[in-house]
């Protein structure tokens, strides 16, 4: 624990533990993004010690998946990070394709990139909305973000049948093809997204209160970020250039010349701005993908879905989810159900450094730092 000046003062003033205020923030707290609890030791308003407590939403997703077949594990992956179900599907399906060696046709790859980038768009928009809600802006940025999210969810509903629980990707492609007119509708939604981003930036980017509240708060040094396995926008805000799309070259991301924004200070403002800039990059990817998608098969007809029995072996597949590196580690023993089904939860691992970032700050900062880490409890507790 970094002994910040506040802790020195707490020690030098000989404050015995009983003078410190022990507050448990959560699991029933308005801004913990789900049932997440932090036992916080306060010296006045300054945090002296913070221990996260997990497990309130634990339903042992991995044990359920070990009892179900590979195909019927897909709807459960929607419920891991229940905001971005498309990217969860893609991570699972990617690792099963690695395990069983299934090829994916061209059009399906394009559909996967389109749905993943759409998910990244509204996940980052929602994050900005939740972060401002934690700062006290009574819902206005959140409502603007949710208005855009509704349009994208309507696209997902007309494509997959359900707004949030899409259950759309299959091993070797997708479940059904794009309904006609979907691409034009998607282009329309995309065209409306950049003006929304300009409006968002007009509302918030030069806002003195936002800068004052987030500059220099919750600083995550570069080495600690790497060592603690923080991934996603949180890591790039600390200046580390690591984006799984650029490192693993999975799917067809090589065809899209997008850039990876990097921050310098690694504080809450950088994490917020990196996400806004990432949305702009995703819009560029989507523009190109929606233009270039060509008709063709979306799944090779003889792909076995029902009783898929991959050879005995193991595979670890990972993608760049909106929250970080989402990976699935599958061990197969040749049977219809996976022997071991492991999810690498980016939200849980990004929380390793929550205490290091919060020590020495006040209560209102802890709420914002937690908001900037962007966790979803479905993925943290699995």
């Amino acid at each position, binding site marked *: 624990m970094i002994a910040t000046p506040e802790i020195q003062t707490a020690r030098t003033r000989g404050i015995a533990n009983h003078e410190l205020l022990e507050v448990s923030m959560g699991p029933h707290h308005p801004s913990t993004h789900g049932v997440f609890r932090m036992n916080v030791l306060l010296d006045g308003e300054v945090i002296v010690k913070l221990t996260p407590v997990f*497990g309130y939403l634990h339903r*042992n997703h991995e044990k359920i998946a070990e009892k179900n077949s590979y195909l019927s594990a897909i709807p459960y992956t929607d419920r891991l990070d229940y905001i971005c179900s498309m990217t969860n599907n893609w991570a699972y399906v990617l690792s099963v394709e690695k395990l069983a060696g299934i090829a994916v046709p061209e059009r399906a790859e394009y559909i996967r990139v389109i749905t993943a980038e759409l998910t990244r768009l509204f996940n980052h928009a929602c994050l900005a909305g939740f972060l401002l809600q934690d700062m006290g802006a009574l819902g206005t940025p959140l409502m603007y973000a949710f208005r855009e999210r509704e349009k994208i969810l309507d696209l997902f509903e007309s494509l997959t049948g359900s707004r949030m629980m899409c259950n759309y990707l299959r091993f070797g492609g997708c479940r059904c093809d794009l309904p006609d007119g979907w691409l034009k509708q998607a282009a329309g939604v995309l065209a409306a997204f950049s003006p929304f981003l300009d409006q968002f930036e007009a509302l918030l980017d030069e806002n003195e209160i936002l800068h004052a509240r987030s500059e220099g708060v919750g600083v995550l040094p570069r080495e600690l970020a*790497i060592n603690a*396995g923080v991934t996603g926008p949180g890591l790039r805000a600390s200046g580390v250039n690591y984006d799984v799309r650029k490192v693993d070259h999975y799917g067809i991301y090589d065809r899209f010349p997008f850039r990876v924004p990097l921050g310098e200070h690694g504080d809450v403002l950088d994490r917020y701005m990196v996400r806004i800039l990432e949305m702009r990059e995703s819009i560029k990817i989507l523009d190109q993908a929606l233009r270039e998608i060509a008709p063709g098969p979306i799944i090779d007809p003889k792909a076995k879905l029902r009783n898929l029995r991959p*050879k005995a*072996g193991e*595979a*670890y597949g990972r993608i760049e989810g909106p929250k970080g590196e989402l990976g699935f580690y599958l061990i197969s023993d040749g049977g219809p159900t996976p022997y071991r089904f492991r999810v690498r939860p980016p939200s849980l691992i990004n929380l390793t450094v929550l205490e290091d970032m919060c020590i020495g700050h006040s209560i209102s900062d802890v709420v914002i730092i937690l908001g900037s880490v962007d966790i979803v409890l479905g993925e943290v507790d699995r």
Partner: protein
Amino acid sequence: MLSLEQISTRICAAIAGARIETVPNASPSAQASLLIDNEHAREIAAFLRDDRELQFDYASNVTGVDWPEKTVKVKTKTKKVIDGVEKEVEELVEQKTPAFLEAVYHLYSMVRGGGPLILRLRTGNRTDHAVLPSLTPVWRSCEFQEREIYDLFGVTFEGHPDLRRILMWDGFEDHPMRKDYQPVAEEETKP
């Protein structure tokens, strides 16, 4: 990125007495892994992270796997005297594979962009010797994941800064992710 053999020879050269075996992986993903012995585990991990050539500075994923006892039919050649003549005969013999708990580490290098290097640590057996050296002092990202293995599989990690149950509540005794776990009736598990 160096191939698996080069990495294992490099480790053996750097750390005397390190026993490393490569565990093949039959699936098309061809991600073979290195089984390392528990005594030198932390030295090997520190070497992997600090070595100029390798720089595996990012432990992406730590997984617990339960390998219970299995009776496997193995074809073995035994000499049998059949009607007076000594002959090599193949027959199926029931053999019990050794049971153990395993922790699998997927390592990446953020600096070099290196692919997954997979380390496997195996415990003595599933009951009393379920102890492994913790790699959290080397990579802090293993902290919560090793706590989860301790919680769901029952592997105690020595040297872990804060080994407590992470997902189940503290009063829970059993380890739910083990293959031989019988879920208790609903009422008793209420905390």
